[in-house]
């Protein structure tokens, strides 16, 4: 059964280029210039899908982005793509959706028979009860039955990309208004971008038969293409408008380009100085009984298929309209030899139309509308009623309910559209100073009007740049005035369902029921009935629904209001939004200057923030659980080498550098001698610990400040803020050196020997380089800083050098200190060694803890001012029962302590948030048991008490004891060795 055929001649298709594609596995063919929709119609595929809820047979309705029915899954598992927007390309694979096994024979069509059950609100009312989880139980079954296309779990094999663009004038839409606007603006020399969602430029002109129009279109395009300041982009949709004239464009590249490894789509972020909206208008359907049958189409779409794609209805077309524009379709059809019957809701029809209709032999029924449509899988007969009654046999029913300006993009900025009685449609409700509307989007229909508008707006858009313009000359011709008789409801109630939104299967009855239930605001109506919530976002249905609701409420349409138009204008693949920010490029990654050295040393890496850090090394084992223990033993007994380059490093210079640091740190830095390092803690203004680190005085006016890895950026920004905003009187300059300097820790009882082997000419004795001392040495003229610091609690040093030399220096150490058995140790061991020593780190410095919570209260200067001094004294921050730092020892052999465990006193009921939690945990090689740091209510007041560490995720509870957080070398004998 078929309703359409391909004409022998005519159209814009290229008959010299046949194109093969498959539809539900069957090979079909069309021509270059076809869309999937036109090719399917030409191949006699009138029934293309089943509806969302009732599984009713459906066919293609429109010829554009507004298509509600003809959705397909194409090739690469991309669902819900309107066939009207898919360029037909060789090898295209299209699948129908929501029909099993096929649209022709669909098992779920039984839903249609059960339809009284499927009214709006039915699901929720029925499946929400009788017990609480009913909806959750039923939902998967309901979703399977009622659905659109399916997503895929497979990786998208296509490339998507992003781009930034800038221009003076963006013109959206390339109909006569857009072409004129772009050219007028372009002739001024301004940077113009013209975007067109279609594969071809011209908009409505592409559906016209007048040779003058085509000549004009080509001439404008040729001139636009010749201007180097104008960019024209076909297949590019303006999807959203945001603050500051930021527009998101989606460009769909030609399939042949995508095959060459180029991106398939590019999401362009465009910033325009001004925008001309020439987005045109969308024809809307009429609402009547069974208006969803395959073959019921928009009148303008029938004309587009005829004139642009040379796809004509088989023999007979019935038409129904309430305005003049449908006659353009009727006359073109009649001239092509197709029998046309015209029902016009208007009793009085302009005489020129009547005489032309008579001349072409059309049957005319003024004051008449459609009562019902017959045909199980395709229109076969239309019942007309009103001033006349007739039963018309036909292949296609073409309808026109009038035109709705495509105001969507114009209102993304928050300006609601306004109702214009004269054209019975919404028009833009106003514009920002740099926005302009031209042509049909303003409700000014007609080619001449559009060109006049385009000229005017093109000139206005560039006026601010002081440019002179030359307007575009229109082709010969005169516009017809637009007359419409608003018709919202069926003129005669039929027996079948009268659909308002065919995609979401919402009928007139559903709107009435929403009204009865009190969902009268259009926003509620939308959510109650799902009207306009499909992939088409109600492009063809919204205004009919608003008007029907206004009628039920007996209020003017403007008062019923519109729903909010939100981006994107048409469906947007998630892949296009992600662009290349996927997989390896999901986020940037950061490599230590010692990365290659670590790799060569057998490191396994772990992500820590953006950093890739050496976790453990192959020499110590091949699992982190065991390797770090060997690495810890190495440091406790011999000497190990670790990469600490990720520490934040900041150059603090200037006459007031010491004063500056003295303010920022809680402890004093003013009197730190040159060549000495000091551990410092800084607070936020609110008295909570921000960060800690070691800072070395290089000279009277220069300090080398280090931060934790995690807070490096935050601290840098904070110091800049203080200096630039508040303490402008201090002469201090801060510069990040995190990337300039690499650092490695040399730790363990044999570290001094290792240092001596590496720097045979340096005096690294404890007299010359005591704990917290700093020594500048040179090796092959490379400046190297030796700092005697310890994170592990052992005798240890940090060796800092300019980053490019770090790899060589690492190799130098491993080679020179080889006789001592030096080996690298990784992040896991670093973190474990510091737990044994009781040093706090990122897990404890979590922006919630105070100095006192961390046992560092004594560091704060008594006399001097420092940031956070006042607010740290807040009563609640001084409360004795605050959770504060403790050590924890596991009391049960063969069990484990786990990070994040909730702490309870031995006598507590194990319930709720407990009295604290474990922040860091490790196996202690020294104590031969699991130990941890944690925060516990009242802290070390409870030293020696028994606690329970609960880990509900694994349903574990283990016995432990509160101890000092300093598990080893409390007196510092090793440190000072």
């Amino acid at each position: 059964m078929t309703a359409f055929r391909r004409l022998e001649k005519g159209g814009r298709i290229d008959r010299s280029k046949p194109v093969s594609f498959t539809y539900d596995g069957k090979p079909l063919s069309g021509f270059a210039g076809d869309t999937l929709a036109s090719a399917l119609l030409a191949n006699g595929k009138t029934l293309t899908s089943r509806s969302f809820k009732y599984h009713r047979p459906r066919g293609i309705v429109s010829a554009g982005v507004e298509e509600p029915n003809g959705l397909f899954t194409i090739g690469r598992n991309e669902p819900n793509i309107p066939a009207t927007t898919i360029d037909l390309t060789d090898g295209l694979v299209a699948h129908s959706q929501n029909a099993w096994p096929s649209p022709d024979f669909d098992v779920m069509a039984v839903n249609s028979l059960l339809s009284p059950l499927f009214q709006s609100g039915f699901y929720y009312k029925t499946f929400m009860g009788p017990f609480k989880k009913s909806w959750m139980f039923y939902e998967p079954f309901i979703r399977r039955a009622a659905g659109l296309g399916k997503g895929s779990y497979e990786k998208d094999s296509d490339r998507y990309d992003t781009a930034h663009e800038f221009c003076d004038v963006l013109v959206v839409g390339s109909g006569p208004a857009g072409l004129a606007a772009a050219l007028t603006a372009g002739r001024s020399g301004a940077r113009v971008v013209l975007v067109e969602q279609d594969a071809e430029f011209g908009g409505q002109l592409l559906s016209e038969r007048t040779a003058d129009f085509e000549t004009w279109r080509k001439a404008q395009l040729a001139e636009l293409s010749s201007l180097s300041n104008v960019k024209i982009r076909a297949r590019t949709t303006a999807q959203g408008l945001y603050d500051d004239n930021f527009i998101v464009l989606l460009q769909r590249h030609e399939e042949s380009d995508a095959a060459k490894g180029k991106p398939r789509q590019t999401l362009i972020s465009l910033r325009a100085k001004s925008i001309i909206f020439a987005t045109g208008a969308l024809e809307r359907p009429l609402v009547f009984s069974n208006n969803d049958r395959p073959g019921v189409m928009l009148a303008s779409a029938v004309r587009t298929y005829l004139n642009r794609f040379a796809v004509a209805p088989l023999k007979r077309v019935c038409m129904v309209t309430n305005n003049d524009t449908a006659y353009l379709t009727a006359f073109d059809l009649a001239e092509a030899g197709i029998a046309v019957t015209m029902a016009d809701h208007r009793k009085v029809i302009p005489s020129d139309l009547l005489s032309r209709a008579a001349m072409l032999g059309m049957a005319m029924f003024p004051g008449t509308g459609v009562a019902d449509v017959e045909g199980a899988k395709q229109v076969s007969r239309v019942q007309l009623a009103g001033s006349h009654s007739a039963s018309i046999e036909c292949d296609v029913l073409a309808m026109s309910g009038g035109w709705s300006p495509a105001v969507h993009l114009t209102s993304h900025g928050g300006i609601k559209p306004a109702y214009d009685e004269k054209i019975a449609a919404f028009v833009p409700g106003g514009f920002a100073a740099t926005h302009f509307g031209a042509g049909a989007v303003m409700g000014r229909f007609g080619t001449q009007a559009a060109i006049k508008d385009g000229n005017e707006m093109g000139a206005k858009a560039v006026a601010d740049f002081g440019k002179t313009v030359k307007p575009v000359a229109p082709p010969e011709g005169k516009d017809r005035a637009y007359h419409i008789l608003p018709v919202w409801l069926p003129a005669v109630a039929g027996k079948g369902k009268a659909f308002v939104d065919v995609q979401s299967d919402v009928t007139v009855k559903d709107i009435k029921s929403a009204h009865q239930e009190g969902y009268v605001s259009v926003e509620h109506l939308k959510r109650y009935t799902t009207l306009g919530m499909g992939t088409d976002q109600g492009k063809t249905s919204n205004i009919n629904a608003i008007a029907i609701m206004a009628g039920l409420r007996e209020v003017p349409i403007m008062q019923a209001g519109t729903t909010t138009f939100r981006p994107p204008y048409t469906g947007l693949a998630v892949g296009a939004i992600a662009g290349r920010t996927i997989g390896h490029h999901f986020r940037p990654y950061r490599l230590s200057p010692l990365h290659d050295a670590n790799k060569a040393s057998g490191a396994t890496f772990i992500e820590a923030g953006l950093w890739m850090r050496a976790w453990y090394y192959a020499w110590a084992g091949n699992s982190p659980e065991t390797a770090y223990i060997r690495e810890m033993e190495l440091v406790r007994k011999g000497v190990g080498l670790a990469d600490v380059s990720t520490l934040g490093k900041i150059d603090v210079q200037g006459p007031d550098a010491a004063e500056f640091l003295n303010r920022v740190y809680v402890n004093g830095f003013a009197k730190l001698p040159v060549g000495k390092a000091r551990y410092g803690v800084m607070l936020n203004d609110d008295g909570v610990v921000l960060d800690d680190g070691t800072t070395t005085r290089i000279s009277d006016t220069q300090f080398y400040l280090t931060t934790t890895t995690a807070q490096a950026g935050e601290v840098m920004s904070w110091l800049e803020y203080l200096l630039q905003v508040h303490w402008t009187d201090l002469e201090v300059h801060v510069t990040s050196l995190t990337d300039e300097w690499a650092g490695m820790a040399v730790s363990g009882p044999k570290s001094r020997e290792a240092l001596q082997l590496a720097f045979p000419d340096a005096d690294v004795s404890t007299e010359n380089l005591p704990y917290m001392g700093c020594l500048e040495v040179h090796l092959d003229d490379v400046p190297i800083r030796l700092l005697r610091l310890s994170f592990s609690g052992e005798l240890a040093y940090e060796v800092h050098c300019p980053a490019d030399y770090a790899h060589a220096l690492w190799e130098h150490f491993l080679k020179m200190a080889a006789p001592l058995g030096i080996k690298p140790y990784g992040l896991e061991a670093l973190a474990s060694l510091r737990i044994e020593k009781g040093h706090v780190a990122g897990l404890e410095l979590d922006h919630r803890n105070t100095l006192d919570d961390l046992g560092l209260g004594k560091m704060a200067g008594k006399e001097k001012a420092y940031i956070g001094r006042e607010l740290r004294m807040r009563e609640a921050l001084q409360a004795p029962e605050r959770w504060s730092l403790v050590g924890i020892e596991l009391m049960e052999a063969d069990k484990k302590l786990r990070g994040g465990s909730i702490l309870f006193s031995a006598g507590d009921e194990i319930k709720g948030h407990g009295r604290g939690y474990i922040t860091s945990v490790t196996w202690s090689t020294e104590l031969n048991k699991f130990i941890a740091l944690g925060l516990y209510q009242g802290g070390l007041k409870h030293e020696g008490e028994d606690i329970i560490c609960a880990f509900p995720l694994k349903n574990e509870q283990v016995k432990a004891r509160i101890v000092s957080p300093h598990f080893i070398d409390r007196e510092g004998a090793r440190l000072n060795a």
Partner: protein
Amino acid sequence: MLDRRSALSLAKSYASPVLQIGEARGFSLLQAAGPAKAISPITGKLPAKVGTASQTDGRTLMRTGENQFWIIGPENDAIAKKLEGVAILTPLSHSRTRIFIEGAPARDVLSKGVPLDFHPTVFKPGMFAMTGIHHTPVLVHCTSQTRFEIYALRTFALSVHDWLTDAALEFVE
């Protein structure tokens, strides 16, 4: 002998008939903070506007702040000695990896990730911008209509290089 190693020693090379991407090694970078009138007698005339660079005595002088300059010279430039006491000096030669991108599509490739107007009449030779590529800070210096030098943080350099070569994949034959 301690030798210098590049952050891009493990980078995959990029080859295209229309576009080159690679590392431009062998430079020194000194940041000098202080008033222009104190610095210029030693360096030569400094650019007047933030975001512009000038060439003097084989060096590129960039104004990166009201009173802050980047002096980019040959690898073992001795200018730091002469500027001691004149300005606050911070050597940054190791902190940045210089990646060049050269060829007709260079502007388009940069536009894929940098929200700057790269139109040839807007971003001209001699100009530079401190901006971001893939969330990391970079300084992009336009050295000719079709060549740009990107100063990326050393620790992000491979990430930026990876990102650029991926962005430029479509120009590989």
